[in-house]
């Protein structure tokens, strides 16, 4: 962050102690910057760090009859013993992997495609970005009641029927739950990724493509040898961000599957936290699971931080 430095007033006298003087001068010089920082620090402290610390403390406590006691690792043991615990992790990783394949590749190729267009660029970009502007809850209700209706009246089933293909029960089918959630989630979120890729693509010097073309490279070779190497940092960064975001999968199961879905087929780790905290009167267990999730996500975030430092 750039720090705004106030100019030293004219005729400023040297302080008696050089070390203390340097400190106080440095402090004075950076006063404005620090003052501005207080707001952000307060906000973070109040709404991010305090809840995190509180969550950590709660994960080692239990409240019964209004009395809170320390219970050591009990909540963690109980949460890991929950038959839904491993299912939730398996589902979450499955969703993340699927979202990475679908939600990562699709926006990248859409961006390449949009980048190739000479006309109606702005119009197409708005079109791709439009779903991002729709509130996630509304978008998911559209999918739930319109697209994923398990009867033949559902949009997707109507299309499948018209194509003489077998229909699906979508969110009610344990095998389709995850792909259906990824599809909806990709549709909802890909607009932002497309725009970021587009910006990255436009930074690639045109000469590289021209040179490749002169060397006789076709479209795939150009993508493989020019586009991907030139955007690989952005690709890696977005992949990491996406992993961290998709692992917090929550609203999709909540709305599309009314929570856990068919026999836990939609239960994600974040949803399991919600279930323990808000349905099972187990806020301490929820806090323990939240901490476990934090550790896992922190590992991915560390990779992200390393990558972004590399880019700087």
């Amino acid at each position, binding site marked *: 962050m750039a720090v*705004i430095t*106030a*100019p030293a007033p004219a005729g400023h006298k040297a302080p008696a102690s050089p070390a203390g003087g340097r400190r106080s001068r440095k402090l004075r010089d950076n*006063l*404005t910057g620090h*003052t*501005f920082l*207080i*707001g952000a620090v*307060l*906000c973070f402290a*109040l709404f991010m760090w305090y809840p995190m610390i509180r969550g950590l403390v709660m994960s080692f406590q239990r*409240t*019964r*009859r*209004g*009395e809170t006691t320390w219970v050591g690792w009990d909540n963690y043991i*109980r949460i890991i*013993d*929950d*038959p*839904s615990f491993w299912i939730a992790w398996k589902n979450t990783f499955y969703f993340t992997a699927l979202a990475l394949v679908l939600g990562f590749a699709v926006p990248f190729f859409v961006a390449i495609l949009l980048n190739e267009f000479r006309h109606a660029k702005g119009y197409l970009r708005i079109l791709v970005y439009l779903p991002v502007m729709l509130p996630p809850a509304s978008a998911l209700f559209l999918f739930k009641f319109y697209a994923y*209706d*398990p*009867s033949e*009246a559902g949009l997707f089933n109507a299309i499948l029927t018209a194509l003489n293909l077998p229909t699906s*029960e979508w*969110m*009610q*089918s*344990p095998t389709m739950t995850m792909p259906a959630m990824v599809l909806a989630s990709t549709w909802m979120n890909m607009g932002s990724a497309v725009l970021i890729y587009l910006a990255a693509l436009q930074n690639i010097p045109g000469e590289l493509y021209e040179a490749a073309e002169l060397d006789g490279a076709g479209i795939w070779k150009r993508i493989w040898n020019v586009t991907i190497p030139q955007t690989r940092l952005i690709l890696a960064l977005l992949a990491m961000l996406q992993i961290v975001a998709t692992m917090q999968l929550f609203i999709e199961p909540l709305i599309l*599957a*009314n*929570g*856990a*879905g*068919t*026999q*836990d087929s939609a239960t994600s780790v974040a949803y399991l936290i*919600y*279930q323990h*905290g*808000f*349905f*099972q*009167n*187990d*806020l301490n*267990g929820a806090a323990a699971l939240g901490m476990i999730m934090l550790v896992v996500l922190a590992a991915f975030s560390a990779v992200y931080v390393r990558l972004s430092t590399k880019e700087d």
Partner: protein
Amino acid sequence: MSVPQYRKVAALALVAGLGFSLTACSTKSDDGGDTAGGKVTISVDCQPVAAQKELLANWNADVAEFQKQNPDITIKSVSVGEQCNNPPDFTARLAGGTMTDVFYGYMTDLQQVLDSGKAMDITEYANKDTIPTWDSVDPALKEVFTDGGKLYAVPVKNYSMGLVYNKTLFTKAGLDVNNPPKTWPEVRAAAKKIAALGNGIAGYSEYSAGNTGGWHFTSLIYSQGGRVLSEDGKKAAFNDAAGKQVLQNLKDMRYGDNSMGSRQLLQWADLLTNAGAGKVGMFIGAPDSTQAIVSQFQGKYEDWAMAPLPGQTGPAKGTLGGGEGYFFKAGLSPDQVKAGLKWIAYQKLTVGKGQLDYARAKPQNYPVGLPQPLLFTNGSEAQKQELELRTKNANVDTANFKIFEENPVPIQGEPRNAQAIYAVLDSAMSGVLTNPNANIDALLKTAEEKVNQLLAAGS
């Protein structure tokens, strides 16, 4: 002012502004909730939402009239949604301590409220002085809100479940509306005929999400003579023949006959929306579910009738009973508790007033003449007066509920930790309703394991 100075001032102003806003957040904006100069202010939730126009107008009129009669009491009404206790919202309010002074809860919420340590023991305040009809209130209902000899809430509504059926669809399917199914095999046969009407109609519909699946499973297993928890409440007891029969019946209807419709994972409003749209032949519910169908989901009273809950081979061995009450937030002054009790007495437990003002409700789109609630003890003066007033002002055809009323099924309460158990049992329900190859034994075993685990954790 030079630019750097200007920036300093701006930064200071920003911080000061933030400080003010934080202070505003932490200051108790609720200036009421205390006693000042002999005046008492209490906040009460479950005020009807704006969409419930008539109910809201009634509530507001009740508040005005009550305050006129008790000039020292001010009621601050708070609306917390159409379904006054949506479990996650309720938990959040309880955890955050943001409930109103007098707050609505289900009978199943006692445990959770006590665990939060935020409820008040009202034993010494609940009496004839604060609630004139108190001695007539059914002791069984008071018992539900009592723990260790201490009373924590005032019961204001109760229900028990039966078989709710659509007479219009019955007639269309060639079924006798005066002879509804008495056993689950008869329900299955009727459901098959109703579903044969096509047009997306489910012969029988059932919940399987948002805790409602587990709630209905409980009633269904009671009908089979089974139970959810062991006698001491420490172990799951549903993984037995009765539990298996419940799931088998549902599986047979869903996949054997395809008579339960294709859309599953239904929760509270989903089923009632379908029912209001005339797409449900039968479901299990309390008499007031017809009220929800009509007032919230555009159905018609004349379509609906009720029979007792069916059993497997004869009458049901039991049915689920539940209800609602009002808790008191810990830390209220004695005057506030008394004021709260007086308000509940006026609005919920006085014949001819509030929810029991049947003359006012008669012309409104609100049912009068349903067989429940039954808040007062059988034979008590209050009960006589209430039934008389109810019959006199009935605006629904009471004949539709006659079979239900005349064939009472033994009522069983909800299990300890009900909401947590219901969340687990949702999974067993969704299993048989969405997977044609569901393994009932495995579903019940998993649910049993989870329930035992959460009971062990809670004890």
